[in-house]
Protein backbone atom coordinates (compact mmCIF):
# COMPACT_ATOMS: atom_id res chain seq x y z
CA UNK A 1 0.00 0.00 0.00
CA UNK A 2 2.65 2.50 1.05
CA UNK A 3 4.57 1.58 -2.07
CA UNK A 4 1.57 2.42 -4.26
CA UNK A 5 1.25 5.85 -2.70
CA UNK A 6 4.96 6.31 -3.25
CA UNK A 7 4.70 5.52 -6.96
CA UNK A 8 1.71 7.82 -7.37
CA UNK A 9 3.58 10.64 -5.68
CA UNK A 10 6.48 10.21 -8.02
CA UNK A 11 4.29 10.12 -11.13
CA UNK A 12 2.57 13.30 -10.04
CA UNK A 13 5.94 14.93 -9.40
CA UNK A 14 7.20 13.97 -12.86
CA UNK A 15 3.97 15.41 -14.22
CA UNK A 16 5.18 18.84 -13.11
CA UNK A 17 8.14 18.70 -15.49
CA UNK A 18 7.98 19.77 -19.11
CA UNK A 19 8.57 16.94 -21.60
CA UNK A 20 8.57 17.40 -25.38
CA UNK A 21 8.05 14.93 -28.24
CA UNK A 22 8.69 12.15 -25.83
CA UNK A 23 7.71 9.21 -28.04
CA UNK A 24 11.26 8.20 -28.93
CA UNK A 25 12.97 5.26 -27.17
CA UNK A 26 16.36 6.73 -26.43
CA UNK A 27 17.31 4.02 -23.93
CA UNK A 28 16.96 0.36 -24.86
CA UNK A 29 17.60 -2.75 -22.81
CA UNK A 30 19.94 -4.88 -24.93
CA UNK A 31 17.90 -7.78 -26.29
CA UNK A 32 18.41 -10.94 -24.24
CA UNK A 33 19.63 -9.07 -21.13
CA UNK A 34 16.19 -8.48 -19.60
CA UNK A 35 16.84 -11.03 -16.85
CA UNK A 36 20.44 -10.08 -16.19
CA UNK A 37 20.73 -9.57 -12.41
CA UNK A 38 22.93 -6.49 -12.97
CA UNK A 39 19.98 -4.79 -14.65
CA UNK A 40 17.99 -4.97 -11.40
CA UNK A 41 20.28 -2.25 -10.03
CA UNK A 42 18.53 0.20 -12.34
CA UNK A 43 15.34 -0.26 -10.29
CA UNK A 44 17.19 1.04 -7.22
CA UNK A 45 19.08 3.92 -8.77
CA UNK A 46 16.65 5.49 -11.27
CA UNK A 47 15.47 8.74 -9.64
CA UNK A 48 12.34 8.66 -11.77
CA UNK A 49 11.45 5.06 -10.83
CA UNK A 50 11.13 4.02 -14.47
CA UNK A 51 12.52 0.49 -14.19
CA UNK A 52 10.47 -2.38 -12.77
CA UNK A 53 10.49 -6.15 -12.74
CA UNK A 54 7.59 -8.06 -14.32
CA UNK A 55 6.15 -11.39 -13.25
CA UNK A 56 8.55 -13.24 -15.57
CA UNK A 57 11.50 -11.75 -13.74
CA UNK A 58 12.38 -9.44 -16.64
CA UNK A 59 13.34 -5.84 -16.07
CA UNK A 60 11.21 -3.38 -18.01
CA UNK A 61 11.76 0.29 -18.72
CA UNK A 62 9.02 2.86 -19.18
CA UNK A 63 10.67 5.97 -20.62
CA UNK A 64 7.85 8.36 -19.84
CA UNK A 65 9.39 10.79 -17.41
CA UNK A 66 13.06 10.07 -18.11
CA UNK A 67 15.14 12.88 -16.61
CA UNK A 68 18.13 11.99 -18.83
CA UNK A 69 20.29 11.90 -15.71
CA UNK A 70 22.49 9.01 -16.86
CA UNK A 71 22.40 7.07 -13.58
CA UNK A 72 21.15 3.83 -15.16
CA UNK A 73 23.98 3.92 -17.72
CA UNK A 74 26.59 4.34 -14.97
CA UNK A 75 25.00 1.62 -12.81
CA UNK A 76 24.39 -0.99 -15.53
CA UNK A 77 26.96 -0.14 -18.19
CA UNK A 78 26.65 -0.14 -21.96
CA UNK A 79 26.60 -3.96 -22.17
CA UNK A 80 23.06 -3.94 -20.81
CA UNK A 81 21.73 -0.61 -22.02
CA UNK A 82 21.91 1.10 -25.40
CA UNK A 83 21.87 4.59 -24.04
CA UNK A 84 21.45 7.76 -26.11
CA UNK A 85 20.15 11.23 -25.45
CA UNK A 86 16.82 12.00 -27.12
CA UNK A 87 17.17 13.93 -30.37
CA UNK A 88 17.55 17.69 -30.31
CA UNK A 89 14.66 19.58 -28.75
CA UNK A 90 13.03 16.39 -27.40
CA UNK A 91 12.79 15.05 -23.87
CA UNK A 92 12.76 16.90 -20.57
CA UNK A 93 13.18 20.69 -20.62
CA UNK A 94 13.90 22.05 -17.15
CA UNK A 95 12.39 25.43 -16.36
CA UNK A 96 14.35 25.95 -13.16
CA UNK A 97 17.25 23.47 -12.91
Amino acid at each position, binding site marked *: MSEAIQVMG*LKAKLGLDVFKNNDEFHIKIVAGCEKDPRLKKAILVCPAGLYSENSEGEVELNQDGCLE*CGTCRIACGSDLLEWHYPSGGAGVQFRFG
Partner: protein
Amino acid sequence: MDERFDAIIVGGGLSGLAAAYTLAEAGQEVLLLERGDYSGAKNITGGRMYIRPIKDMFPDLWEKAPFERGVAHEEVCVMSGSGSLLVRYSGEEAPYQSYSVMRAKFDKYFAKQAERKGVSIVTKTRVDDLVWADGKVAGVIVGDDELRADVVIACDGVMSLIAEKAGLRKPGNPKHYAVGFKEIIELDQELLEARFNLKDDQGVARLFVGDVTKGKFGGGFLYTNKSSISLGMVMGISDLMNEEPMIPAPEMLELFKKRPEVSALIEEGQIVEYSAHVIPEGGYRHLSNLCGNGILVCGDAAGFSINSGMTVRGMEYAMGSGYYAAQAVLKAKELKDFYCTGLSVYEKLLNDSFIMKDFKTFQDVPEAMDNKRLFTYYPELAINMMQKLYDIPDGPKDRIIPTVKGMLGFREIWTIVTKDLRRMMKL
Protein backbone atom coordinates in the same frame (compact mmCIF):
# COMPACT_ATOMS: atom_id res chain seq x y z
CA MET B 1 25.86 22.58 -45.08
CA ASP B 2 29.35 23.57 -46.08
CA GLU B 3 30.38 26.13 -43.54
CA ARG B 4 33.67 26.06 -41.67
CA PHE B 5 34.29 27.34 -38.17
CA ASP B 6 37.35 28.06 -36.09
CA ALA B 7 35.79 26.00 -33.31
CA ILE B 8 32.69 23.91 -32.77
CA ILE B 9 31.54 23.50 -29.21
CA VAL B 10 29.36 20.57 -28.23
CA GLY B 11 27.07 21.48 -25.33
CA GLY B 12 25.78 24.84 -24.17
CA GLY B 13 26.19 24.36 -20.42
CA LEU B 14 28.61 26.42 -18.37
CA SER B 15 31.83 24.97 -19.78
CA GLY B 16 30.66 25.24 -23.40
CA LEU B 17 29.38 28.77 -22.97
CA ALA B 18 32.60 29.81 -21.23
CA ALA B 19 34.74 28.43 -24.05
CA ALA B 20 32.52 29.97 -26.74
CA TYR B 21 32.33 33.35 -25.01
CA THR B 22 36.11 33.55 -24.62
CA LEU B 23 36.84 32.50 -28.21
CA ALA B 24 34.29 34.89 -29.69
CA GLU B 25 35.71 37.71 -27.61
CA ALA B 26 39.06 37.00 -29.29
CA GLY B 27 37.40 37.30 -32.70
CA GLN B 28 37.00 33.60 -33.55
CA GLU B 29 34.12 32.11 -35.55
CA VAL B 30 32.44 29.83 -33.05
CA LEU B 31 29.48 27.50 -33.43
CA LEU B 32 27.89 26.14 -30.27
CA LEU B 33 25.45 23.24 -30.52
CA GLU B 34 23.03 22.49 -27.69
CA ARG B 35 20.52 19.64 -27.67
CA GLY B 36 18.06 21.33 -25.29
CA ASP B 37 15.41 23.90 -26.26
CA TYR B 38 17.68 26.53 -24.69
CA SER B 39 20.88 26.57 -22.66
CA GLY B 40 20.04 25.26 -19.22
CA ALA B 41 17.08 23.14 -20.36
CA LYS B 42 18.98 19.94 -19.55
CA ASN B 43 21.16 21.14 -16.71
CA ILE B 44 20.77 21.07 -12.99
CA THR B 45 22.92 21.97 -10.06
CA GLY B 46 22.51 22.03 -6.26
CA GLY B 47 23.33 24.71 -6.06
CA ARG B 48 25.57 27.52 -5.44
CA MET B 49 28.22 29.01 -7.63
CA TYR B 50 31.55 30.14 -6.18
CA ILE B 51 32.64 33.28 -7.98
CA ARG B 52 36.10 34.24 -6.80
CA PRO B 53 38.34 31.91 -8.86
CA ILE B 54 36.59 32.83 -12.13
CA LYS B 55 35.41 36.39 -11.76
CA ASP B 56 38.30 37.97 -13.67
CA MET B 57 37.88 35.57 -16.59
CA PHE B 58 34.46 37.02 -17.41
CA PRO B 59 34.55 40.57 -16.04
CA ASP B 60 31.35 41.72 -17.80
CA LEU B 61 29.26 38.77 -16.74
CA TRP B 62 28.56 39.32 -13.08
CA GLU B 63 26.84 42.65 -12.64
CA LYS B 64 23.56 41.55 -14.20
CA ALA B 65 23.88 37.83 -13.53
CA PRO B 66 20.56 36.29 -12.38
CA PHE B 67 21.76 35.06 -9.02
CA GLU B 68 19.19 34.08 -6.44
CA ARG B 69 20.73 34.84 -3.05
CA GLY B 70 24.21 35.40 -1.60
CA VAL B 71 25.12 32.51 0.71
CA ALA B 72 25.52 34.37 4.01
CA HIS B 73 24.84 31.38 6.27
CA GLU B 74 26.43 27.96 6.12
CA GLU B 75 24.60 25.28 8.03
CA VAL B 76 25.17 21.63 8.79
CA CYS B 77 22.47 19.38 10.16
CA VAL B 78 23.83 16.12 11.57
CA MET B 79 21.13 13.49 11.85
CA SER B 80 20.80 10.22 13.72
CA GLY B 81 17.76 7.95 13.55
CA SER B 82 16.02 9.92 16.25
CA GLY B 83 17.60 13.35 16.68
CA SER B 84 19.64 16.02 14.99
CA LEU B 85 22.17 18.73 15.66
CA LEU B 86 22.11 21.97 13.65
CA VAL B 87 25.11 24.28 13.36
CA ARG B 88 24.90 27.67 11.65
CA TYR B 89 27.97 29.66 10.69
CA SER B 90 27.37 33.29 9.79
CA GLY B 91 30.27 35.56 9.02
CA GLU B 92 30.08 36.09 5.29
CA GLU B 93 29.23 39.53 4.03
CA ALA B 94 28.50 40.98 0.58
CA PRO B 95 30.03 40.57 -1.92
CA TYR B 96 29.47 36.92 -1.09
CA GLN B 97 31.83 34.19 -2.23
CA SER B 98 28.97 32.05 -3.47
CA TYR B 99 25.44 32.63 -4.75
CA SER B 100 22.52 30.25 -5.20
CA VAL B 101 21.55 29.81 -8.84
CA MET B 102 19.05 27.99 -11.02
CA ARG B 103 20.58 26.76 -14.24
CA ALA B 104 17.66 27.36 -16.58
CA LYS B 105 17.92 31.05 -15.72
CA PHE B 106 21.67 31.41 -15.41
CA ASP B 107 22.65 29.42 -18.52
CA LYS B 108 20.05 31.26 -20.61
CA TYR B 109 21.52 34.58 -19.47
CA PHE B 110 25.09 33.41 -20.14
CA ALA B 111 24.05 32.22 -23.63
CA LYS B 112 22.65 35.66 -24.41
CA GLN B 113 25.93 37.26 -23.35
CA ALA B 114 27.88 34.78 -25.51
CA GLU B 115 25.68 35.62 -28.51
CA ARG B 116 26.41 39.29 -27.92
CA LYS B 117 30.11 38.47 -28.21
CA GLY B 118 29.38 36.86 -31.58
CA VAL B 119 28.90 33.14 -30.83
CA SER B 120 26.46 31.34 -33.17
CA ILE B 121 24.30 29.22 -30.92
CA VAL B 122 22.05 26.55 -32.40
CA THR B 123 19.73 24.87 -29.91
CA LYS B 124 17.51 21.77 -30.29
CA THR B 125 20.48 20.19 -32.01
CA ARG B 126 22.13 16.98 -30.86
CA VAL B 127 25.65 16.17 -32.04
CA ASP B 128 25.64 12.51 -33.06
CA ASP B 129 29.24 11.82 -33.95
CA LEU B 130 32.62 13.25 -34.90
CA VAL B 131 34.10 13.84 -38.33
CA TRP B 132 37.66 12.55 -38.72
CA ALA B 133 40.19 13.65 -41.36
CA ASP B 134 43.98 13.40 -41.55
CA GLY B 135 44.19 11.58 -38.22
CA LYS B 136 42.34 14.24 -36.28
CA VAL B 137 38.85 15.31 -35.34
CA ALA B 138 37.74 17.70 -38.07
CA GLY B 139 34.16 18.46 -37.14
CA VAL B 140 30.86 16.99 -36.00
CA ILE B 141 27.94 15.10 -37.47
CA VAL B 142 24.40 16.29 -36.80
CA GLY B 143 21.82 14.06 -38.45
CA ASP B 144 22.84 14.04 -42.12
CA ASP B 145 24.98 17.18 -41.88
CA GLU B 146 28.73 17.44 -41.45
CA LEU B 147 30.02 20.61 -39.84
CA ARG B 148 33.73 21.31 -39.99
CA ALA B 149 36.12 23.20 -37.74
CA ASP B 150 39.80 23.38 -36.79
CA VAL B 151 38.93 22.12 -33.35
CA VAL B 152 35.98 20.58 -31.49
CA ILE B 153 35.53 21.20 -27.77
CA ALA B 154 33.54 18.52 -25.92
CA CYS B 155 31.51 20.31 -23.24
CA ASP B 156 28.69 17.78 -23.25
CA GLY B 157 28.55 17.09 -19.55
CA VAL B 158 29.18 14.15 -17.27
CA MET B 159 28.16 11.35 -19.69
CA SER B 160 30.31 12.89 -22.46
CA LEU B 161 29.42 10.52 -25.27
CA ILE B 162 31.50 12.77 -27.53
CA ALA B 163 34.71 12.31 -25.54
CA GLU B 164 33.93 8.57 -25.56
CA LYS B 165 33.64 8.62 -29.35
CA ALA B 166 36.98 10.42 -29.51
CA GLY B 167 38.50 7.59 -27.43
CA LEU B 168 39.39 9.98 -24.61
CA ARG B 169 37.31 8.27 -21.93
CA LYS B 170 35.40 5.09 -21.17
CA PRO B 171 31.92 4.64 -19.71
CA GLY B 172 32.17 5.26 -15.98
CA ASN B 173 32.51 3.03 -12.95
CA PRO B 174 29.71 3.55 -10.35
CA LYS B 175 32.33 4.11 -7.65
CA HIS B 176 33.40 7.37 -9.28
CA TYR B 177 29.97 8.89 -9.77
CA ALA B 178 27.14 10.18 -7.64
CA VAL B 179 23.57 10.96 -8.56
CA GLY B 180 21.84 14.12 -7.42
CA PHE B 181 18.06 14.44 -7.40
CA LYS B 182 16.17 17.47 -6.27
CA GLU B 183 12.96 19.41 -6.09
CA ILE B 184 12.34 23.09 -6.55
CA ILE B 185 9.79 24.10 -3.95
CA GLU B 186 8.21 27.52 -4.26
CA LEU B 187 7.57 29.38 -1.04
CA ASP B 188 6.24 32.84 -0.30
CA GLN B 189 9.29 35.13 -0.15
CA GLU B 190 8.43 36.71 3.21
CA LEU B 191 7.73 33.33 4.74
CA LEU B 192 11.01 31.96 3.40
CA GLU B 193 13.03 34.88 4.78
CA ALA B 194 11.37 34.58 8.18
CA ARG B 195 11.75 30.81 8.28
CA PHE B 196 15.48 30.89 7.58
CA ASN B 197 16.13 34.19 9.34
CA LEU B 198 17.38 35.96 6.21
CA LYS B 199 17.79 39.66 5.52
CA ASP B 200 17.34 41.12 2.03
CA ASP B 201 19.19 39.07 -0.56
CA GLN B 202 20.91 36.80 1.97
CA GLY B 203 20.62 33.07 1.57
CA VAL B 204 21.47 29.88 3.36
CA ALA B 205 23.13 26.62 2.33
CA ARG B 206 22.27 23.69 4.55
CA LEU B 207 23.90 20.29 4.36
CA PHE B 208 22.30 17.22 5.96
CA VAL B 209 24.50 14.26 6.90
CA GLY B 210 24.07 10.97 8.72
CA ASP B 211 20.82 9.04 8.84
CA VAL B 212 19.52 10.93 5.81
CA THR B 213 21.46 8.54 3.53
CA LYS B 214 20.99 5.48 5.76
CA GLY B 215 24.74 5.16 6.17
CA LYS B 216 25.53 5.39 2.46
CA PHE B 217 27.93 7.88 0.91
CA GLY B 218 26.23 11.23 0.34
CA GLY B 219 24.00 13.78 2.00
CA GLY B 220 21.02 16.04 1.68
CA PHE B 221 21.17 19.68 0.64
CA LEU B 222 19.01 22.76 0.84
CA TYR B 223 19.65 26.11 -0.83
CA THR B 224 17.40 29.14 -0.59
CA ASN B 225 16.55 30.92 -3.84
CA LYS B 226 14.64 34.20 -4.05
CA SER B 227 11.24 32.68 -3.46
CA SER B 228 11.94 28.96 -3.62
CA ILE B 229 14.03 26.24 -2.07
CA SER B 230 16.28 23.76 -3.85
CA LEU B 231 15.99 20.59 -1.79
CA GLY B 232 17.62 17.32 -2.73
CA MET B 233 20.13 14.59 -2.13
CA VAL B 234 23.46 13.51 -3.58
CA MET B 235 24.32 9.82 -3.24
CA GLY B 236 27.22 7.67 -4.41
CA ILE B 237 25.85 5.40 -7.15
CA SER B 238 27.86 2.40 -6.00
CA ASP B 239 26.51 2.65 -2.43
CA LEU B 240 22.99 3.29 -3.64
CA MET B 241 22.98 0.10 -5.72
CA ASN B 242 25.09 -2.22 -3.56
CA GLU B 243 24.76 -1.36 0.13
CA GLU B 244 22.03 -2.33 2.56
CA PRO B 245 19.40 -1.13 3.15
CA MET B 246 18.33 -1.34 -0.50
CA ILE B 247 16.03 1.64 -0.87
CA PRO B 248 15.23 3.09 -4.31
CA ALA B 249 16.45 6.65 -4.89
CA PRO B 250 12.99 8.30 -5.08
CA GLU B 251 12.03 6.71 -1.76
CA MET B 252 15.22 7.99 -0.11
CA LEU B 253 14.13 11.51 -1.03
CA GLU B 254 10.63 10.95 0.38
CA LEU B 255 12.08 9.60 3.65
CA PHE B 256 14.36 12.64 3.84
CA LYS B 257 11.44 15.01 3.28
CA LYS B 258 9.40 13.27 5.98
CA ARG B 259 12.00 14.01 8.64
CA PRO B 260 10.55 16.69 10.94
CA GLU B 261 13.76 18.74 10.50
CA VAL B 262 12.96 18.97 6.78
CA SER B 263 9.18 18.84 6.59
CA ALA B 264 8.89 21.94 8.77
CA LEU B 265 11.07 23.88 6.32
CA ILE B 266 8.97 23.13 3.26
CA GLU B 267 5.53 23.42 4.82
CA GLU B 268 3.15 25.47 2.64
CA GLY B 269 5.60 25.10 -0.23
CA GLN B 270 4.62 24.02 -3.73
CA ILE B 271 6.81 21.60 -5.71
CA VAL B 272 7.26 23.00 -9.22
CA GLU B 273 9.98 20.76 -10.65
CA TYR B 274 11.76 17.47 -10.04
CA SER B 275 15.13 16.83 -11.67
CA ALA B 276 18.16 14.54 -11.50
CA HIS B 277 21.69 14.39 -12.87
CA VAL B 278 24.87 12.36 -12.47
CA ILE B 279 27.92 14.04 -10.87
CA PRO B 280 31.53 12.98 -11.54
CA GLU B 281 33.24 12.43 -8.20
CA GLY B 282 36.30 10.34 -8.97
CA GLY B 283 38.63 13.31 -8.49
CA TYR B 284 42.10 13.77 -9.93
CA ARG B 285 42.83 10.07 -10.49
CA HIS B 286 39.76 9.59 -12.67
CA LEU B 287 39.82 12.61 -14.93
CA SER B 288 39.41 11.80 -18.63
CA ASN B 289 42.12 12.49 -21.16
CA LEU B 290 41.84 16.22 -21.70
CA CYS B 291 43.18 16.51 -25.18
CA GLY B 292 43.20 14.57 -28.46
CA ASN B 293 44.03 15.44 -32.05
CA GLY B 294 41.61 18.22 -32.93
CA ILE B 295 39.62 17.95 -29.69
CA LEU B 296 39.61 19.21 -26.09
CA VAL B 297 37.40 18.15 -23.16
CA CYS B 298 36.03 20.56 -20.50
CA GLY B 299 33.86 20.66 -17.40
CA ASP B 300 31.95 17.60 -16.21
CA ALA B 301 32.86 15.84 -19.47
CA ALA B 302 36.46 15.81 -18.21
CA GLY B 303 35.44 14.94 -14.63
CA PHE B 304 35.97 18.42 -13.15
CA SER B 305 33.73 18.17 -10.10
CA ILE B 306 34.71 17.72 -6.45
CA ASN B 307 32.51 16.57 -3.57
CA SER B 308 34.36 17.67 -0.47
CA GLY B 309 31.69 16.23 1.80
CA MET B 310 30.57 19.76 2.66
CA THR B 311 29.74 20.94 -0.82
CA VAL B 312 29.86 19.93 -4.49
CA ARG B 313 31.97 22.22 -6.64
CA GLY B 314 31.69 21.87 -10.39
CA MET B 315 30.37 25.07 -11.88
CA GLU B 316 33.45 27.20 -11.43
CA TYR B 317 35.63 24.35 -12.73
CA ALA B 318 33.34 24.04 -15.75
CA MET B 319 33.63 27.75 -16.51
CA GLY B 320 37.34 27.86 -15.73
CA SER B 321 38.20 24.86 -17.89
CA GLY B 322 36.12 26.31 -20.76
CA TYR B 323 38.10 29.51 -20.47
CA TYR B 324 41.46 27.71 -20.55
CA ALA B 325 40.37 25.50 -23.47
CA ALA B 326 39.64 28.69 -25.41
CA GLN B 327 43.07 30.08 -24.52
CA ALA B 328 44.65 26.82 -25.68
CA VAL B 329 42.83 27.01 -29.02
CA LEU B 330 44.14 30.54 -29.53
CA LYS B 331 47.71 29.37 -28.81
CA ALA B 332 47.30 26.37 -31.14
CA LYS B 333 46.12 28.75 -33.84
CA GLU B 334 49.32 30.80 -33.50
CA LEU B 335 51.29 27.56 -33.92
CA LYS B 336 48.96 26.42 -36.76
CA ASP B 337 48.87 23.05 -35.00
CA PHE B 338 45.50 21.61 -33.94
CA TYR B 339 46.91 18.17 -33.21
CA CYS B 340 47.59 17.15 -29.63
CA THR B 341 51.05 18.65 -29.94
CA GLY B 342 49.60 22.12 -30.39
CA LEU B 343 46.50 21.77 -28.22
CA SER B 344 48.16 20.17 -25.19
CA VAL B 345 49.03 23.63 -23.91
CA TYR B 346 45.51 23.24 -22.41
CA GLU B 347 46.94 20.78 -19.87
CA LYS B 348 49.71 23.17 -18.98
CA LEU B 349 47.29 26.06 -18.52
CA LEU B 350 45.11 23.88 -16.30
CA ASN B 351 48.09 22.68 -14.28
CA ASP B 352 49.08 26.26 -13.54
CA SER B 353 45.52 27.23 -12.59
CA PHE B 354 43.30 26.82 -9.50
CA ILE B 355 41.64 23.88 -11.24
CA MET B 356 44.43 21.29 -11.28
CA LYS B 357 45.89 22.71 -8.09
CA ASP B 358 42.56 22.01 -6.35
CA PHE B 359 42.26 18.59 -7.94
CA LYS B 360 45.74 17.63 -6.77
CA THR B 361 45.17 19.06 -3.29
CA PHE B 362 41.92 17.15 -2.90
CA GLN B 363 42.89 13.96 -4.71
CA ASP B 364 42.55 11.86 -1.55
CA VAL B 365 39.10 13.16 -0.68
CA PRO B 366 37.14 10.40 -2.45
CA GLU B 367 39.18 7.76 -0.59
CA ALA B 368 38.94 9.53 2.78
CA MET B 369 35.17 9.93 2.35
CA ASP B 370 34.78 6.27 1.43
CA ASN B 371 34.27 5.44 5.10
CA LYS B 372 30.88 4.25 6.26
CA ARG B 373 31.59 5.44 9.81
CA LEU B 374 31.39 9.05 8.65
CA PHE B 375 27.75 8.50 7.73
CA THR B 376 26.74 6.23 10.62
CA TYR B 377 28.95 6.10 13.71
CA TYR B 378 29.93 9.79 14.01
CA PRO B 379 26.46 11.28 13.48
CA GLU B 380 25.04 8.81 16.04
CA LEU B 381 27.84 9.66 18.47
CA ALA B 382 27.30 13.41 18.11
CA ILE B 383 23.57 13.12 18.70
CA ASN B 384 24.01 10.73 21.66
CA MET B 385 26.46 13.14 23.27
CA MET B 386 24.02 15.99 22.85
CA GLN B 387 21.24 13.91 24.31
CA LYS B 388 23.38 13.08 27.36
CA LEU B 389 24.55 16.68 27.80
CA TYR B 390 21.03 18.07 27.82
CA ASP B 391 19.38 15.25 29.70
CA ILE B 392 18.11 16.00 33.19
CA PRO B 393 17.09 12.66 34.67
CA ASP B 394 14.57 12.01 37.45
CA GLY B 395 17.40 11.73 39.95
CA PRO B 396 20.89 13.30 40.13
CA LYS B 397 22.75 13.98 36.84
CA ASP B 398 26.13 12.34 36.20
CA ARG B 399 29.27 14.39 35.63
CA ILE B 400 29.74 15.30 31.99
CA ILE B 401 33.26 14.18 31.13
CA PRO B 402 32.92 10.65 32.56
CA THR B 403 29.64 10.33 30.64
CA VAL B 404 31.36 11.28 27.39
CA LYS B 405 34.26 8.96 28.19
CA GLY B 406 31.77 6.16 28.79
CA MET B 407 30.55 6.57 25.23
CA LEU B 408 34.06 6.33 23.84
CA GLY B 409 35.52 3.01 24.95
CA PHE B 410 39.17 2.12 24.33
CA ARG B 411 38.29 0.23 21.19
CA GLU B 412 36.36 3.22 19.83
CA ILE B 413 39.23 5.61 20.48
CA TRP B 414 41.68 3.18 18.93
CA THR B 415 39.62 3.01 15.71
CA ILE B 416 39.18 6.78 15.61
CA VAL B 417 42.90 7.45 15.99
CA THR B 418 44.41 4.64 13.94
CA LYS B 419 41.88 4.39 11.13
CA ASP B 420 39.60 7.39 10.73
CA LEU B 421 41.92 10.21 11.77
CA ARG B 422 44.76 8.84 9.70
CA ARG B 423 42.49 8.81 6.67
CA MET B 424 41.11 12.25 7.40
CA MET B 425 44.64 13.65 7.78
CA LYS B 426 44.89 13.42 4.01
CA LEU B 427 42.19 16.05 3.57
